[in-house]
């Protein structure tokens, strides 16, 4: 298998081609082909994975053909299968297959199901290309491919204007990041003459500090765009306009983690410059807090999950920014997150499926009784993300928090460790709020709702993912860390003693988690005040609710909502403002400039003559000067 790596990509790509070109004839069986393709890739990926274990050097590299050759610069269409790639391939195809299976049920009533699976397989192929390439241009190919597929899938329901707008926003913000990445590639070509991973990494030492910094910042810009990190985070929550399986696969489990992959893959570049690492860590810490706080104030179930994704990826950025052994920690958290976040998104989809596409958590409540499987699986995801032992989040998030404390500078330990710790508490709060408002407390449904459990094709993937959410962290944490070095650097032998001991951190984070979860449980057990209650006969209950309300508002909601509002304001006005402002500038400039094209042939001649005089003048000036 290791000599036929291209099959991994070719199978979903071929399936996508068939699905998109076959026409209506394929409507009847198309979705099953769509499920089979990633499953086949998963099996092949497993075979390759086991093959890799016994391979000396633990990396298989192959060149399919020379993509591009000019002068002494060669760019190959080459694939690389090493431990880092292997875990990504298994995550993409494994979780991907389950989500494909789920989508068979979720999209059953949609006319465009075949087209949907076509795009979905296209995404899997592009994502595999992204992680399998052996050089940055291949990575870029996959990078653009997943961007395209994600754009197509976000605006899949294109007759919703919000979906179309969200698709556009995602495309534009991603282009900003992509431009940074593209310039980084040109910089590599100019400075090193190669884009091959091994060759680039072996020559990093020869670059000046400034070059490494610029290169790293450009790569970071690309990573932030794709992974929804500050300051390019705004598109990700909007991207939830797409079908829920898309949110689960692309905007939770795989594509948005491509930024983490990029940084982890480029670890020799990032490790070479401490300023660069500090910037990555800052981005991660800032984003993770921002995600938590905004997530706490949202009422749309998918948006809460989206902000939580932003925040969790913030943890991963924190990890890759810390460097050393924390690279592996970030990847392990990424894997675990892939499981529990996909699980929760699919759970949210299942809830929406049963509640006639309602997404407002204020309109849920008490669903535990009606959707037992969804409730149980979602609970596993919830417990995993808040990091309750022995579920997987505990084993993967905890070490990152600990690593954030284990730094040489005390202030760094306090700032970044503190942010990570605070984030853990906030995560517990908003995730509990989401869980409680959805599944417990009084029913706050709109009229005519008859919640029901989803069909087996949907809950089977849920159950499998829930099992993953429970056990993945504990089982994977230490073997995967070993498995990943190299290519990722090993933890340094000498232990750095941070400002807090390891046990203290664990205890602190658990206490904060329980506090956050308990507070949320207490506040939202009886529903939420923002929703007018159905006029019930029990006045006492209503009163109690009012009491909760006042407490809620005075103690938490007011200050919280101010902060949130401020953040949302910065988010909308600041970042969007820059994007929109630039667009307006270009558009306005264009609108003015096009008036110069008057349609009069004589003014055209004037422009030519003026240009000619300038050219002559400049040529002579260069001559004389």
């Amino acid at each position, binding site marked *: 298998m290791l000599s036929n790596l291209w099959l991994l990509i070719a199978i979903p790509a071929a399936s996508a081609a068939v699905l998109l070109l076959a026409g209506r004839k394929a409507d009847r069986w198309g979705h099953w082909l769509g499920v089979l393709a990633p499953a086949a890739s998963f099996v092949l990926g497993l075979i390759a994975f086991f093959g890799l274990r016994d391979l000396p050097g633990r990396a298989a590299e192959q060149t399919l053909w020379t993509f591009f050759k000019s002068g002494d610069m060669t760019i190959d269409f080459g694939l690389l299968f090493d431990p880092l790639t292997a875990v990504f391939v298994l995550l993409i195809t494994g979780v991907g297959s389950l989500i494909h299976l789920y989508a068979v049920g979720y999209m059953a009533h949609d006319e465009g199901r075949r087209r949907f699976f076509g795009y979905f397989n296209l995404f899997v192929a592009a994502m595999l290309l992204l992680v399998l390439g052996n050089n940055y241009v291949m990575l870029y190919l996959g990078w653009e491919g997943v961007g395209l597929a994600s754009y197509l899938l976000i605006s899949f329901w294109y007759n919703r204007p919000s979906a179309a707008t969200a698709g556009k926003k995602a495309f534009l913000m991603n282009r900003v990041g992509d431009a940074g990445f593209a310039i980084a590639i040109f910089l590599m070509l100019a400075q090193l003459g190669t884009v091959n991973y091994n060759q680039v990494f072996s020559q990093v030492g020869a670059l000046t500090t400034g070059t490494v910094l610029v290169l790293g910042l450009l790569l970071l810009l690309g990573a932030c765009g794709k992974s929804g990190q500050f300051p390019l985070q705004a598109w990700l929550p909007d991207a939830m306009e797409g079908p829920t399986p898309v949110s689960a696969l692309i905007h939770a489990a795989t594509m948005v983690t491509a930024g983490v992959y990029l940084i982890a893959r480029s670890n020799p570049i990032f490790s070479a410059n401490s300023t660069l690492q500090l910037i990555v860590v800052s981005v991660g810490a800032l984003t993770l807090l921002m995600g938590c706080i905004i997530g706490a104030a949202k009422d749309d179930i998918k948006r809460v999950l989206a902000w939580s994704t932003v925040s969790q990826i913030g943890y991963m950025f924190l990890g890759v920014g810390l460097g050393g052994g924390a690279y592996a920690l970030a990847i392990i958290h990424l894997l675990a997150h892939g499981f529990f976040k996909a699980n929760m998104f699919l759970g949210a989809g299942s809830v929406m499926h049963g509640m006639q596409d309602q997404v407002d958590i204020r309109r849920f409540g008490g669903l535990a009784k009606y959707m037992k499987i969804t409730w149980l699986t979602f609970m596993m995801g919830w417990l995993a993300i808040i990091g309750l032992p022995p579920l997987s989040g505990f084993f993967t998030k905890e070490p990152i928090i600990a690593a954030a404390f284990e730094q040489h500078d005390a202030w760094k330990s306090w700032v970044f460790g503190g942010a990570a710790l605070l984030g853990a508490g906030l995560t517990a709060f908003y995730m509990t709020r989401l869980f409680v408002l959805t599944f417990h407390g009084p029913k706050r449904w709109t009229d005519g709702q008859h919640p029901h459990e989803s069909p087996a094709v949907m809950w089977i993937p849920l159950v499998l993912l829930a099992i993953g959410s429970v056990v993945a962290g504990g089982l994977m944490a230490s073997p995967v860390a070993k498995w990943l070095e190299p290519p990722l650097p090993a933890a340094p032998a000498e232990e750095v003693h941070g400002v807090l001991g390891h046990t203290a951190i664990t205890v602190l984070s658990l206490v904060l988690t329980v506090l956050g979860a308990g507070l949320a449980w207490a506040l939202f057990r009886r529903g939420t005040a923002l929703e007018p209650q159905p006029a019930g006969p029990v006045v006492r209950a209503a009163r109690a609710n009012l009491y909760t309300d006042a407490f809620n508002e005075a103690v938490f909601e007011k200050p919280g909502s101010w902060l949130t509002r401020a953040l949302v304001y910065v988010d909308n006005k600041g970042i969007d403002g820059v994007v929109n402002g630039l667009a307006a500038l270009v558009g306005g400039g264009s609108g003015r400039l096009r008036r110069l094209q008057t*349609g009069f*042939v*004589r003014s055209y001649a004037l422009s030519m003559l003026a240009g000619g005089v300038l050219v002559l003048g400049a040529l002579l000036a260069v001559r004389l000067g």
Partner: protein
Amino acid sequence: MTPMWYIVLAAVLFSIGAVGVLVRRNAIVLFMCVELMLNAANLALVTFSRINGTLDGQIMAFFAMVVAAAEVVIGLAIIMLIFRTRRSASVDDANLLKY
């Protein structure tokens, strides 16, 4: 009188033609200005031929004249086409394509 003055004359004629294109409205006059520029170039070619002491420049002027004649024919055809449609030879009236 050095031949260089002829070059100056050619440059002056060329500039008159180049500016003429900008200030005139009649398509045919515009076109005559372009022809003036071409002929200024011819004058320059012939003069340089004289200065350089080679005949190449004169031959080139021949070619330039033939090309100019071909251009005249094409140009007249197009201008007539427009004139018949619009009853106007003013280039400012042909102004549908813009922005």
